[in-house]
């Protein structure tokens, strides 16, 4: 059972990383244009962050 000492913090940490990443994406307007973003992948132009 000692493995839990490592596993629980690790799982919590990984979950928190995901949560922080999600909050970052929401904050930086990445859900404003889902349809456009799905098409932009196909374009060769350099465009890796939403412009204001």
């Amino acid at each position, binding site marked *: 059972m000692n493995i839990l000492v490592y596993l629980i913090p690790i799982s919590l940490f990984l979950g928190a990383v995901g*949560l922080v990443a999600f909050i970052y994406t929401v904050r930086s307007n990445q859900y404003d244009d889902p349809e456009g973003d799905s*098409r932009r992948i196909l*374009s060769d132009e350099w465009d890796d962050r939403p412009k204001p």
Partner: protein
Amino acid sequence: MTAVLRPPASACPACAAAPAALELAGASEPRTGEIVLSLPTIHCAACIARIEAGLAAHDGVKTARVNLTLKRATIDAAPDITAADMIAAVTALGYEAHELDPSALSATAADRAGRELLMRLAVAGFASMNVMLLSVAVWSGATDATRDLFHWISAAIALPAIVFAGQPFFRNAWRALRAGQLNMDVPITLAILLAVGTSLWETALRGEHAYFDAALTLTFFLLAGRYLDHRTRAIARSAAEELTALEVPRAWLSEGGTEREVPIAQLRVGDRVVVRPGGRLPVDGEITDGVSELDRALLTGETLPVFAGPGQTVSAGEMNLTGPLTIRATAVGRDTSLHRMADLVAVAEAGRANYTSLADRAAKLYAPGVHILSALAFLGWYLATYDMRTAINIAAAVLIITCPCALGLAVPAVTTAASGRLFRRGMLIKHATALERLAEVDTVVFDKTGTLTTGTPALTGLDALGDREAGIAMALALGSSHPLSRAIVEAGQAAEITPASVSEITEVPGYGAKGVWKGQTVRLGRASWVGAAPLAVTASYLQVGEDAPVALPFEDRLRDGAAETVAQFIARGFKVYLFSGDSAPSVEAMAEKLGITRWMAETLPADKAARVEELRASGAHVLMVGDGLNDTAALAAAHVSISPASALDAARVASDMVLLGSDLSVLAEACTIAKSATKRIRENFRIATLYNIIAVPLAVAGLATPLIAALAMSTSSITVSLNALRLRGGQR
């Protein structure tokens, strides 16, 4: 008229007749901020790249960003760049573009409330998953120190998560309690707080059961419902805003011989305003200069254009057809008759707020019910055992397990699915309870001009004309942009009539066109001008030389799907009425054509509203479909109302739903969808009740362990959501 979004300056058919007016409307105005364009025809990656590159290559443009979801481009440009330049640039690339008023779009630009909900949803989801992980370990047999440790970790995750994620409920509940009322959020808040409170206590006493996971999943499911609800309304709101933003309000001010374009907000009483052909009057006033014809269809429902000359009083919202007019403003902005009418509607709308939605009715039964039940459970157990701890635990379990999440999801999930389906078919639901009200409709009232008909006339009497007259009429009509002339040209081209060689064609604003044919003067225009006896229907009159004038009668063209829609409503046993401000013969002809037996002509706006009230008082649930100012009062008075996107802003504001396309046939479908949506909502309530009937006795008996609570709660929520999804239908 196929595009959903039409040119700026107005939502009128005659604007198409005057492209010049469009360009003028989009012309120079010094601005500081950004330019927003609506791009209704974009659809792919190539469109985005081409437009962005094309705009960015334009001098003075700093950045250009296309949003495909909203079909919009936001351009950050130097102050001297105008929207007209940008529209020209996009048009040159082969796409349609219309200017949007950025100030009217402000509310959707930053959807802060939605973002906040999404964030809370994410936190609740994260926390509930982690706590569930630990809880599963406890349920599957962790004991003693391990169990306590797991409970403490759960508490450490759950407490901050609940404090953050539950705020929307806490705030709402507090507001309701302070106002001395009970709403759905009160039992929710109580359940969450009690669950967390007792769990903490149990954990501190090294107890066996903790409900941290239940509290978190409850929050998660409820937030999901809230978010769905918010999304539905946000989509409707943004589309409604876009319709408003399309009409960029500008006017031409005449000052000492020069003309200047100003925003309408800057107009003052006494200003002289120039209105060009194809433009909508921005103010109430008196004509000081110019002769023209006015189209008052949106205001009065009359299809016949009215002659306008100096000295005549005119009101905002009327459309100038043939000649430029100068108007001295007597009322501007909020004082115009158009706005005063719209304000009246706001008063009438307050009456509609009395409608209680199904969800509210359910909450009224539910909220006191569960509180009494849980209090009884507490009392019963306390009297039976004299053990405070057990009694409170049982009471908390009752509150949790009668979980309102099925109820909280029942309505939003269904309305989201239904309004999404209607939105794809071109119908926008603005009001939260509109779907429920639409489901109850048994009487439909149509307006004629602009609703059942497109508002653009079509020539009917072409066959009655001789070849000679037809050719002359064609030739004269070709030289004019009057809507009736365009209709003659259209009909003539369809019948393959060659225009006669008429020379010296001149247009006389307000009267018609004249020319010379084989040495004789030929005239096409108003009855009084050519000396003919006017007909009751919309007509143009042709006179060749000194011959007796001939009439060319017009008929309003039916909107796509209008006949089928009316037929469907009649076939389903709805009572269908036709109320119009137009003259009796044309209304009768229209009613006969569509098979409507109950009609009323030459109605004043107040008559329409009064008749709708009367129908309502006799127990009918009235659906009003109308587009003009003369309909707004009736739209607000009806049980539920729909207006086409081409309607006046005032009418769109007054109605519960807006028809985005030009096809009416979605109306009948909307009624069907509304009916099945209400059915689903009721089914969902039944599922929730059924589940409570099974779960509550378990909780009261003290058998509801956290595992059972979690299972029951998730099952009911998922069943309810799946049931709502049945509404979506297969087609896109």
